[in-house]
């Protein structure tokens, strides 16, 4: 571990019912310190109801070179969108 501790990514739920959103990172020596540091760093203005911290090194991410193969194949599947379908005129609540 570096003398500044590990990097932890911080996710905050701003209100009950909402998804946790990435807000940035903190340094922390161990999980409890990371959690406390995230609390002191990112909720000074009542921004949160719940905090997750995830060790940065544990995150698996896609890489930009694969953007094409990863994301483009879904761009012709418009049948996944509700607006793709034609509904009989006059039908309600659908």
């Amino acid at each position: 571990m570096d003398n500044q501790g590990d990097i932890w990514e911080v996710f905050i739920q701003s209100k009950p019912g909402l998804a946790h959103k990435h807000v940035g990172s903190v340094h922390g020596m161990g999980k409890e310190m990371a959690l406390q540091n995230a609390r002191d760093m990112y909720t000074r203005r009542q921004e949160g109801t719940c905090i997750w911290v995830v060790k940065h090194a544990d995150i698996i991410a896609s890489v930009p070179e694969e953007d094409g193969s990863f994301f483009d194949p879904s761009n012709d599947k418009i049948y996944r969108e509700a607006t793709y379908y034609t509904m009989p005129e006059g039908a309600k609540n659908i």
Partner: protein
Amino acid sequence: MTLVIVFYDLKIVNCELNIKTNNNMSDLEKFLEKIEENIKIEPKDWMPDDYRKHLQRQMSQHAHSEVIGMQPEGNWVLRAPSLRAKVILLAKIQDEAGHGQYLYSAAETLGKSRSTYINELQTRKAKYSSIFNYPTLTWADMGAVGWLVDGAAIVNQVSLQKTSYGPYSRAMVKICKEESFHQRQGYEIISNMAKGTPEQKQMAQDALDRFWWPSIMMFGPHDADSSRSENAMKWKIKNETNDQLRQKFIDKTIQQAEIIGLTIPDKDLRWNDETNHYDFGEIDWDEFWNVVKGNGPCNDDRIEHHIKAHEDGAWVREAAIAYAEKNG
């Protein structure tokens, strides 16, 4: 249920790999195209080595400024004249620590660790804003620092929200939002003193006299003398030049001085109907470069203070690391 995570700031794991592809024209073209179309560059995207280096330098300098900037204000937190002033000042300094942290965090996405950046600061390889090498001598200086120094910083930071590097831009958005009270805090202090007792008024004017010129130096050298500006503009790291930003700051600050009855210490200051801006006097660039090179009144003290805190804390960090390695 699908969990949507907005997640951007992935650090570069293998920056050498990226640098090797520097000659690949299609990468460079792609990069320039993104810049042209105002699409943000993200940490894992290919970027020219000079772009990365420029950002590492600028962002760490920005982070160091926030952290070193805690000292001149911290100088007065124990002596604040009211409990209200004390908590406001402390909260403001604390925000600055937080902003330093946001910026280090963003700068780390460029493949360099915070401990490396800190080491560069302590060995004086990295700079920080020269303004913090001036001493805060009276309480009125808390007013001048908030009003002028934060005021100048805000002009710069508002502009930087549009910077081309994603993590930097996002840090700036967050910082600008949080800093909105900082300048008001300072202006409130100095305006209260300007309408206070004769002694207070004198302190307020004196603070303005001492902080005016260093504040307008904060924007850096004239565009013609700024070697790095060209690249920064080309890559849209900066979207406005030093002189443009300086002019913006001067134009909006003069009225604020007038309304509280303080005089800006520049006899050449006058409104120019043709340019629709204020003309102002010549900046003492000798002083500027001297302070940049380490000869300001507080350069040594600021760095020594930082090193002392860092060294005093070494055993604490070691203990926490040892514990975490045993217990997670």
